């Protein structure tokens, strides 16, 4: 357990380093034509690589799990770092429900994620939400592992 934790910490630290170095690069290059492996700060790639773009939910629930909340708190800090960034939070469900209910459930998940961002200091006007219900799965298998990945709210830079 301790080993796992320190590994995660190392990854997070590396992520911050990447963010800093790419920050400098983009300042030099104006952000255009960045080479392979370079990530433009404040971009979706930056969010995915260095912050985490999504939180996962339990079956039929839309409350933010304690283990997922830090992702949204990091997102809020990241958005504070890049005040020009606007995001859309997409709410999704797994395939084991009916379409209309899942559209509503996905919206409730997106709203729950947005609320944490707002509580973290992000202006509500910078965040829009949308639900795709079960209609845009990320994992395409029909099994528990795929469903767990699909019960998600994904923050997308607009």
């Amino acid at each position, binding site marked *: 357990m301790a080993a796992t934790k320190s590994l995660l910490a190392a990854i997070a630290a590396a992520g911050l380093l990447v963010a800093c170095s790419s920050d400098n690069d983009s300042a030099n290059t104006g952000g255009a034509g960045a080479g392979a492996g370079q990530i433009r700060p404040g971009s979706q790639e930056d969010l995915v690589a260095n912050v985490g773009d999504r939180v996962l939910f339990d079956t*039929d629930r*839309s409350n933010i799990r304690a283990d997922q909340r830090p992702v949204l708190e990091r997102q809020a800090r990241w958005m504070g770092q890049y005040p020009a960034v606007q995001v*859309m939070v997409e709410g999704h469900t797994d*395939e*084991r*429900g*009916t*379409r*209309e*209910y899942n*559209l*509503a*459930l996905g*919206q*409730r998940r997106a*709203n*729950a994620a947005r609320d944490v961002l707002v509580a973290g200091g992000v202006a509500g006007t910078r965040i*829009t939400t*949308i*639900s795709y219900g079960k*209609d*845009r*799965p*990320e*994992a*395409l*298998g*029909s099994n528990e592992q*795929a469903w767990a990945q699909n019960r998600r709210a994904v923050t997308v830079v607009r």
Partner: protein
Amino acid sequence: MSTINRRSFLAAGLVAPGIFATPWPASGQSGQPTIVDITRARTEPIPIAIPNMAGTGSEGARLGAQIAQVITNNLRNSGLFRPVERAAFIQSPEAAAATPRFQDWRVIGAVGLVTGRVDASGDRLRVEFRLWDILPEQQALGTAYNASLSNWRQIAHIISDDIYKRMLGENGYFNTRIAYIAETGPRDRRTRRLAIMDQDGENNRFLTDGQFQALTPRFHPNATQIAFMSYQRNEPRVYLFSLGSGRQEVLGNFGGMTLSPRFSPDGRSVVLSAIRGGDANIFVVDLASRRERQLTNSPGLDVSPCFSPDGTQIVFNSDRGGDQQLYVMDANGGGARRISFGNGRYATPVWSPRGDLIAFTRISRGQFAIGVMRPDGSGERILSEGWAMEGPTFAPNGRVIMFYRESASRDQRGAGYSARLSSIDIAGFNERQIVTPTDATDPSWSPLIS
């Protein structure tokens, strides 16, 4: 929709072709006994002989055969009729169209015989059809239709409905359409288009181009409009689509997602769900004034509202009690009471046009099912069960339900997944897949087209 002229005639032996007697009395008031009881037809489908119709004019013979084929398919697919093998026929179709030799049809086991003459030349089509009751050796029905040639399929559906009604004593459902969502492309990036087709899968048309995702179409009670959900401008909202003009417009201004629309039985309003804050509540929008009225205000998700056919009640789906269950309330929003108490979650309730049943989706122990219950929640029956199925819609006579069925992915890339429409008799037999050009979901059955 189209100009179809209908005349009825009686007692064929006494009336020369082309000379019309007075039309039949209005349906249900004729006092004529039905030929077969529908409950009996379920266990013992009615044997009926449908020879090719005799043809005159350049296109008459071809259309006479095609119309007979459409009628044959309709009646067979209902599960209540058994078209007699044509190889067994003794009398020729031409001779039968003049005067049937009842003995020839009785010995091959037919209870009913359908004959006709088709005159088709230029753009004009004239179809005379007669239904014969073999045992009493009587003409049971005789009607002539005049229409433009391109409407020949619709004439065949109307004749199918005539036969169904005369023999079973209830309205048919063959001259109807299905609105649905046509799905193409990989599962994580699907294109979803609004589509419409005849009840038998013919005349398929795509109504939207797929640029924006479309979901959950529902017919207006006069079949001229469809309410559906569109993702235009990344703002999922309920829209109205006019079948006449092809135009669509957003319904209401809710400032958030709207979903699960259904027209009221009088066609003057739409009931839907709107999400404000974290909750989904049910609203009704008056179509003339566009004024909205909130009907529910509960913590939780209230979705999939549907009016009773008399317009006095609304059944809907809510998780207010912890998990998804069905509730019925007064049309003004008062007096909500839970009606589903079986094992599992219940969803997508839809009221039968007859008023006697509510169809639903049930999710229980990892299986999906389509079932029916009475509006007070009693008499629950499961009609079909499988990996995934949902979205029931009733045929206008309340005797058949259509829904969509999905198969599970076999691997991590989604191979093996499919979504198809199925229909089933409300007694739980005769489940049939509806042939569609693409994957298909969210069927909505139109009323009878007049």
